[in-house]
């Protein structure tokens, strides 16, 4: 992790300071690299002329069971400073859930919800993936984690029948935020049915401290009615092939982040959102109405690559990390800025910010939403 602090002043002095900080950090990192005697260190990859061929750590201390969370919650930041063995217990559960008002869809889940569980490990950890498939499941499933260096991202080793368990292990060689998904054939169907989630591999030195972290994953549903069963829909394969979704949602359902399920923050806090795009088809133009991203780790990489961003592009099967300081109370609106999706198909979520308003940050002076009304 090279970026130590964020400068809000786009001035030449700040730029020089940032460059100096980077230079010092790089020297520090290289010194660390030679001191520990490892080569192909992840931090060396930040230097553009180096392509590391990574090696797992020489020493793994201890083991622990990963704490997994459901969206929009994220496991707490990792505090240990050594590589350990992390056991991930993930169970595939097939169930029918509401994806929109009075619309039920047969989803296949990692851990009981769409999106699936959030996994948080540290660069260098030895991750032991235990994939179970619930006994009443109709089909076998597997898992491909984009963080894995290995055949099929783990998929080949993890095809698991109903009632069974498969195990494989991998070293989290690359830091960053990665999508995982089921890769059993037909892959588009398994993904369209909700089989995706995210794994965060924290860089060795961790991420800068923030006050709130959230997990948001965008995805699409392609549906048509099930003949003779009111309220139940099924996968519309033709719509999937045409890439014309019925729903484009955050966290698995229309309205999953609205009303009492809105995200929360307070004025003065630093917020980080781990955003994924599961697809299966569309990219996302991710924007928060009423805020500007102070830092964006484009494509979920381990370095904040851009500052002061309105809308960031998230690839299908990819991710991004966005960070912003919250300066004003009110309602922020998360959208995919391909705006018909937000307005008509569900690509809309809310963050409710409490705290003291600052008229210098924003003040309505005249008009219908006039000075008498604070931002709500």
């Amino acid at each position: 992790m090279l970026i130590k602090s964020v400068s809000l002043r786009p001035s030449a002095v700040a730029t020089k300071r940032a460059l100096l900080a980077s230079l010092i950090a790089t020297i520090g990192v290289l010194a660390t690299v030679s001191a520990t005697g490892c080569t192909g260190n992840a931090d060396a990859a930040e230097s553009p002329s180096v392509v590391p061929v990574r090696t797992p750590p020489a020493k793994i201390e201890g083991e622990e069971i990963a704490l997994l969370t459901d969206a929009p919650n994220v496991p707490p930041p990792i505090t240990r400073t050594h590589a350990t063995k992390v056991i991930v217990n993930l169970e595939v559960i097939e169930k029918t859930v509401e994806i929109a008002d009075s619309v039920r869809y047969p989803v296949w889940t990692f851990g009981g919800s769409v999106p699936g569980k959030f996994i948080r490990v540290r660069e260098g950890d030895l991750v032991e993936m235990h994939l179970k498939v619930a006994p009443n499941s109709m089909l076998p499933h597997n898992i491909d984690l984009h963080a894995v260096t290995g055949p099929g991202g783990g998929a080949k080793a993890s095809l698991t029948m109903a009632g069974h368990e498969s195990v494989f292990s991998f070293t989290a060689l690359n830091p960053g935020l990665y999508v995982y998904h089921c890769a059993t054939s037909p892959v588009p169907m398994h993904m369209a049915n909700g089989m995706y989630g995210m794994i965060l591999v924290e860089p060795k030195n961790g991420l800068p401290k923030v006050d709130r972290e959230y997990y948001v994953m965008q995805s699409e549903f392609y549906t048509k009615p099930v003949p003779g069963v009111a309220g139940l829909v099924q996968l519309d394969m033709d719509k999937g092939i045409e890439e014309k979704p019925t729903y484009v949602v955050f966290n698995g359902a229309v309205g999953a982040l609205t009303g009492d399920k809105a995200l929360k923050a307070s004025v003065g806090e630093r917020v980080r959102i781990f955003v994924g795009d599961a697809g299966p088809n569309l990219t996302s133009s991710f924007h928060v109405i009423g805020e500007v991203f102070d830092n964006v780790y484009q494509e979920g990489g381990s370095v904040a690559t851009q500052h002061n961003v309105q809308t960031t592009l998230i690839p299908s099967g990819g991710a991004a990390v966005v960070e912003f300081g919250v300066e004003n109370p009110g309602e922020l609106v998360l959208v995919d800025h391909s705006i018909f999706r937000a307005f008509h198909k569900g690509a809309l979520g809310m963050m409710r910010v409490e705290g003291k308003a600052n008229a210098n940050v924003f003040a309505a002076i005249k008009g219908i939403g006039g000075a008498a009304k604070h931002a709500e």
Partner: protein
Amino acid sequence: MLAAALFALIAVTPPAGMVKIPAGAYVPIYGQPAQVAAFALDRMPVTRGEFQSVVGEDARRPAVGITWFEAKQYCEARGKRLPTTAEWERVASATPIHEQMSLYATRRIGANAGTVGRGERNRFGVADLHGLVWEWTLDFDAPAHNASHHAHAEHNGVSCASAAIGATNTNNYPAFLRNAVRAGLERNTATASLGFRCAANL
């Protein structure tokens, strides 16, 4: 002449509860189009009552929790056999893909599967091929029909998006689903969503 005709009629009339499937072609999800000789197939899956593993109100539900060995033995004890994968898939393909998908979506395959015989008969006169239970075939683990991870892991890529490579019809999701189910089976697997029906030579 009449005797010959009568003889021919008797010779091709399948045993009770079975239908004749005429010779015909089918296209497997991987490989070349194939010819399947005429054979007889049970109209319905074997029920629990028939299998005598569960009696009472469950008697008309499909027999499940049965290994390949047990299914094979049951058929052979009755002068029949398990259908080959080619035979089973040929008959299954009589139902349009979208209809197969709807059946998988509505009928919950597995322990809560409905009673045998409620499903519509396809144009061969065979019922309940889709959406009730998965069914054993004689050669489910032959490399041509099975892309298991411990058989040809690279071949047919059932565990990856590369499954599309070499597939005869990428729209045939139900065929991919069944291919994936077969890939996970061993001969001594028994699950609550796996039943069988028998076939016979003609």
